[in-house]
């Protein structure tokens, strides 16, 4: 059994399978053991990266954006800051508030982490390296995200605290609202690739889908940011507004798990965007050298994570009613229009045998122009409505007219 360098991950699997079969176990058990080992490695690697490295990266990059140094005491360049934070959280006292529903209170952080770890099962790292090549990968991603929403309600309700409940309800309202444009826009890579499987979507990206459907990519990015609860949508944990929202009553490592889940989810958003719109592991030479594909994938994911952090330190927080208006009145109609026009234009392009990519690019540019015109018309109509009102008296603040929306 030789090690095929063109297919290192497949060879490793084959080697392990032969080893276990040689020990006298039968096939289904061998497959199960390999699945458990693979899952353990995946969960361990990603959780460690998220819990330790990403937290350091987040704070360092944030510090540099804000023209300061960031952690630089613990270890070289402050790299062990994440470990120090983890140790600190473990040693903190774990307070369960009086009257809290203990079982639900304890399960909520576990579900939050589980839902994010489950997302990584369908992410293709390299040509043969994927946890589970489900042919319904895209919907699986949406499904597991829904479990995270459930954990928020559980946390908010079981805390026996009206602010936690209020925060949880607002959070869940925001999360479910932004799921709609996300799911609708996920139809676009599905259509372009002809399959819901992540591997098929990566294989179909001879041209990155970012170039074929930039508006769809942007809508997906914005909805994902809101799904994670990052700025500009982080009102759910805005310290000046509702303290910590649904995780007020959590302390110690349970709180740590919620935080890990949030950072980890941001990182996962980067990975999903990479797979769906940036061509995953594809790049020059990655077909012949799968390890190179892995490098490309990691580079692209970290770049997208950097963009997520960039957005965080650039934009101010958006108010809840503005957030909901943005979703239902802008993103959802836009997503519907994108799906409809992409479907029709792609078929027309095929019938007229025009090249696909320029046609799609032209469509997206047209959509952007139309959207800008529509927004301008809306702003004009709003201004006319404001100017039609009687002059505000000295006491009235002009902000009442600008108001929500």
């Amino acid at each position, binding site marked *: 059994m030789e090690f095929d360098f063109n297919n290192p991950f497949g060879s490793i699997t084959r080697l392990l399978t032969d080893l276990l079969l040689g020990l006298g176990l039968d096939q*289904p058990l061998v497959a199960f053991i390999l699945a458990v080992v693979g899952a353990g490695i995946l969960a361990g690697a990603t959780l460690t990266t998220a819990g330790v490295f990403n937290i350091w990266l987040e704070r360092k990059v944030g510090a540099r954006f804000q023209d300061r140094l960031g952690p630089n005491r613990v270890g070289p360049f402050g790299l062990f800051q994440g470990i120090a934070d983890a140790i600190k959280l473990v040693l903190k006292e774990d307070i369960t508030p009086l009257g809290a*529903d203990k079982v*639900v209170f304890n399960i909520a952080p576990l579900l939050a982490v589980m839902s994010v770890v489950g997302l990584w099962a369908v992410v293709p790292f390299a040509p043969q390296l994927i946890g589970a090549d*489900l*042919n*319904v990968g895209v*919907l*699986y991603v*949406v*499904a*597991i*995200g*829904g*479990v995270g*929403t*459930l954990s928020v*309600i*559980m946390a908010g*309700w079981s805390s026996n605290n009206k602010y936690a*409940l209020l925060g949880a*309800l607002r959070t*869940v309202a925001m999360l*479910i609202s932004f*799921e709609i444009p996300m*799911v609708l826009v996920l139809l676009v890579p599905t259509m372009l690739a*002809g*399959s*819901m*499987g992540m591997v098929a979507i990566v294989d179909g990206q001879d041209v990155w889908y970012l170039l074929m459907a930039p508006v769809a990519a942007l809508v997906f990015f914005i909805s994902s940011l809101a799904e994670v609860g990052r700025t500009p949508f982080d009102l759910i944990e805005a310290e000046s507004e509702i303290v910590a929202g649904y995780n007020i009553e959590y302390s110690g490592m349970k709180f740590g798990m919620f935080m890990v889940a949030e950072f980890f989810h941001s990182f996962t958003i980067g990975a999903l965007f990479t797979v769906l719109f940036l061509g995953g592991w594809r790049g020059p030479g990655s077909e012949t050298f799968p390890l190179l594909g892995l490098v490309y994938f990691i580079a692209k994911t970290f770049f997208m994570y950097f963009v997520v952090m960039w957005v965080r330190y650039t934009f101010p927080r958006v108010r809840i009613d503005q957030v909901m208006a943005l979703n239902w009145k802008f993103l959802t109609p836009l997503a519907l229009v994108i799906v409809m026009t992409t479907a029709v234009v792609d078929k027309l392009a095929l019938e007229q045998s025009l090249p696909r990519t320029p046609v799609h690019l032209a469509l997206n540019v047209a959509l952007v122009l139309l959207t800008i015109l529509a927004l301008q018309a809306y702003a004009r109509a709003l201004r006319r409505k404001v100017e039609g009102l009687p002059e505000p008296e000295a006491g009235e603040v002009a902000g009442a007219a600008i108001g929500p929306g």
Partner: protein
Amino acid sequence: MTAMQAIFLLLGLITFLSAVMVVVSPQLIHAGLWLVLTLAGVAGLFVLLEAPFLAVVQVVIYIGAIAILIIFAIMLTRRMLREDGRQYNNLWAGAVTVSLILFAVLTFLVLQEPSLAAGSEPLQAETSVLLQDLGRSMVDVDRFIIPFEVASILLLAALIGAIYVARPMMASEEGDREE
């Protein structure tokens, strides 16, 4: 007892027990959460039946949307914090017996159908191909195009109905707010 049978028994047991807990739980929110576990069990059963699309749709729609809707509805009633006490009365033994008899009769009737009693056969094609066939069949003029479009009208009717019913509640809240 193959591995598949063992997994099926386990999933079936989880689903069944969660369903019983939904009915029996004294606290309403707990019943909602047990319902989520029941729906997850059903999704697992769909996976065992090699219907992955239905499994993920089950989780997306039932757990991600309908369970959340039910939990919101539970929170809309102010009873959610009260322990309502035992949810079943003293006749529960008789009810369980009748249910078991009904289950036995139904199973017997179902097993009379020869194609169902013969055991499972493998699918005719790969699930991806079957999924494409499903998509084609939904827009094929000879097959399911009418139900497909009627489904959208049904959803539209549900949306309009829900908003129509909810408008008085929204108006009264706005009235409260202006005081």
